[in-house]
């Protein structure tokens, strides 16, 4: 089995699923910043939308992290952790929390990750207005999670499932951010904190992050802009205009 992957939360989710199942797999790093996932070969052979992760299992190629983990949960039902509830009603609730992750949680969590981790990694400027808006909206969403996790230990009920699995990677990135407000979204909520701490101690998660945190090292290395960002140009042209108007030189 091969996992073509990058550094985002979706890639960690796929790895997490593989480790929960105790499966051996080869990692093929795809440098999306360098455009490696947008080459004609990648689009034709792996994912026409030019994104990672992509799982190869024999002849089967799958993309979209939630399709990948669903495949692993079904195909390897008998090995490792059971990631799908047996009861059909509980399984429907799990599906619901996967959708909640996609539609309610992910839009704001991914904005935070893009603004506070990915853009610095690319040498681009953070939009702090966008960060504040996302924090506020995510706070409302997390109130609902807090209530849910007060009723049950995991999102689908009594046991860890795919629904919980897909939340840990983005939360892991959120907790590594320098913005106190972001970490506070989690730590100010005791039920969510307890849920996160339980998941972080899972052996499969420890295997997932042992090499996965190098994005933060790479971010530090890439702090020098690899291209001029918009603010540099704006300051230059404002300075020139001011000089011309006031006659200063």
């Amino acid at each position, binding site marked *: 089995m091969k996992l073509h992957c990058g550094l985002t939360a979706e890639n960690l989710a796929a790895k997490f699923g593989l480790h929960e199942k105790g499966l051996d797999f080869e990692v093929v790093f795809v440098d999306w910043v360098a455009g490696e996932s947008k080459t004609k070969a990648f689009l034709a052979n792996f994912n*026409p*939308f030019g994104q990672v992760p992509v799982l190869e299992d024999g002849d*089967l190629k*799958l*993309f*979209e992290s*939630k*399709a990948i983990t*669903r*495949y692993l949960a*079904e*195909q390897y039902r008998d090995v490792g952790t059971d990631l799908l509830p047996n009861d*059909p*009603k509980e*399984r*429907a*609730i799990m*599906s*619901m929390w*996967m*959708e*909640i992750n*996609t*539609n*309610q949680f992910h839009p704001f969590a991914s904005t935070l990750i893009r603004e506070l981790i990915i853009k610095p990694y690319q040498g681009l400027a953070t939009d702090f207005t966008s960060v504040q808006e996302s924090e506020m909206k995510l706070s409302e*969403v997390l109130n*609902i999670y807090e*209530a849910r996790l007060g009723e049950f230990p995991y999102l689908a009920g009594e046991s860890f499932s795919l629904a919980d699995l897909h939340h840990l990677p983005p939360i892991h990135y959120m907790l590594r951010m320098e913005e106190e407000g972001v970490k506070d979204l989690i730590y100010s909520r005791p039920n969510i904190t307890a849920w996160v701490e339980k998941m972080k101690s899972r052996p499969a998660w420890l295997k997932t992050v042992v090499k996965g945190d190098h994005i933060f090292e790479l971010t530090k290395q890439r702090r020098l802009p690899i291209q001029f960002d918009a603010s540099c140009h704006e300051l230059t042209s404002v300075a020139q205009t001011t000089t011309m108007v006031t006659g200063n030189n």
Partner: protein
Amino acid sequence: MAGIKVFGHPASAPTMRVLLALHEKNLDFEFVHVDLMGGEHKKEAFLARNPFGQVPAFEDGDLKLFESRAITQYIAHRYEGQGTNLLPADSKNIAQYSIMAIGMQVEAHQFEPVASKLVSEQVFKLKKGLTTDQAVVAEEEAKLAKVLDVYEARLKEFKYLAGDTFTLTDLHHIPTIKYLLGTPTKKLFTERPRVSEWVAEITKRPASQKILQ
């Protein structure tokens, strides 16, 4: 069967997804109209059904759900033997199921965010007396064109998005496509031959006709 209730609004695309699945399965259900204009979806009684304050919400006996794509998946599995099969032909074939799952993720991540912005600009804003922002329309149409190019290539190989039979993946697209066919964005569908055929197929289905008035 008697215990199915849908709490929603007939103009809401997510509500329509659920209604499509129920009609495809010939299931009896009670439709409870939620007064969106009056803000009913943000009031306590509805929030008890969906704390995120969005339609639809759903009940089948003592099971309560929300999120349209979770509801349709539940219906497809729970009523697998009835009406139209909304899962792949060999539903026990995990690889086939996973390919359908990819299509469902693509609809949710690649198609819907862009398509719904186009519906919002060209349909819902007008209903509220606001004007369409043509710059947004142009930007989003460019993104949708790229997605539909991928669909065109896919549909050259298969009759439907997940294979040779109609599945949830196709169904999830229908309500938003219905809205876009009433806007200039329709051209993006009609100028791609296989996409155009697929759109005609999925919108002419009896279940689609029931909700696409």
